[in-house]
């Protein structure tokens, strides 16, 4: 890529405006092509989050559609002091939880309910992993293991892990998009990471697959 030439006053940019903001502004004025760009940019991630929460493919497809539609209808309410993506995730998380509640009628589902679990607060499986654990499994077998493992976590842990570690959101952005406090995000992230680690150890520890039986 060639170097970006900056000249004159262009060099002095007091505040960097996120490119999404310009797209949102155009979309607000009815420019659907601008909104299409935002949809194309984030649809995969929104689908992934929805699928992680609902654990149901049809629900995740519906959530993705509804989240983008809701966001479009509410564009005027987007303040611009948070990222568009963070704001969009919040809408998608709420939609996902609504779907989940519909499926599990009568059962409370929430991201912020405190999950009382000691699991993972202290590592128990202390065997080291083989140097290249992925070499033991084929691509699709690996994906099955990873899906099965993360599905065993409470929804509030799963979504924190996905936003922070897979999507790369900051702690603050994760807190904002889930409506959680920063300490709550931090404590969930640690427990999510440790629980996943513990569960994956069964598959990846040295001397291989025997442990998983």
């Amino acid at each position, binding site marked *: 890529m060639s170097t970006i030439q900056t000249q004159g006053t262009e060099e002095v940019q007091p505040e960097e405006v996120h490119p999404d903001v310009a797209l949102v502004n155009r979309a607000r004025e009815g420019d659907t092509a601008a909104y299409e760009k935002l949809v194309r940019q984030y649809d995969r991630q929104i689908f992934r989050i929805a699928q992680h929460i609902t654990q149901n493919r049809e629900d995740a497809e519906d959530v993705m559609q509804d989240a983008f539609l809701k966001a479009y209808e509410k564009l005027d309410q987007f303040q611009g002091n948070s990222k568009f993506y963070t704001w969009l995730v919040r809408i998608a998380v709420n939609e996902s939880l609504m779907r989940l509640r519909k499926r599990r009628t009568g059962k409370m589902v929430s991201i912020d309910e405190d999950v009382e679990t000691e699991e993972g607060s202290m590592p128990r499986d202390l065997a080291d992993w083989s140097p290249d*654990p992925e070499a033991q499994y084929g691509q699709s077998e690996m994906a099955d293991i990873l899906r099965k493992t993360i599905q065993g976590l409470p929804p509030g842990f799963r979504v924190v892990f996905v936003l922070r*570690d897979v999507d790369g959101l900051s702690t603050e952005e994760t807190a904002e998009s889930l409506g959680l406090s920063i300490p709550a995000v931090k404590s969930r992230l640690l427990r999510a990471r440790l629980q996943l680690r513990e569960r994956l150890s069964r598959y990846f520890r040295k001397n291989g697959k025997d442990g998983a039986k």
Partner: protein
Amino acid sequence: MTCSEFLAQLDDLIDDHVTATMRADLEEHLSGCDHCVVTLSTTRKTIEIYRKHELYTLPDTMRERLQKAILDRCKKC
């Protein structure tokens, strides 16, 4: 430093959010504790593996269908 104290700093260590003094303390604990060495390296590996594998892919045809459905409805808003 105890293992529990080390664990309390694990995320900050992984995310590279520790001060130089704290890092030195953590490294000192690691030099004498194989358990925490394993916990650290396998937790890092856990994150790396989840980052690398897309667990829920959206096939292109489905993606286009959904995008079109969204935009068609937006245009009617």
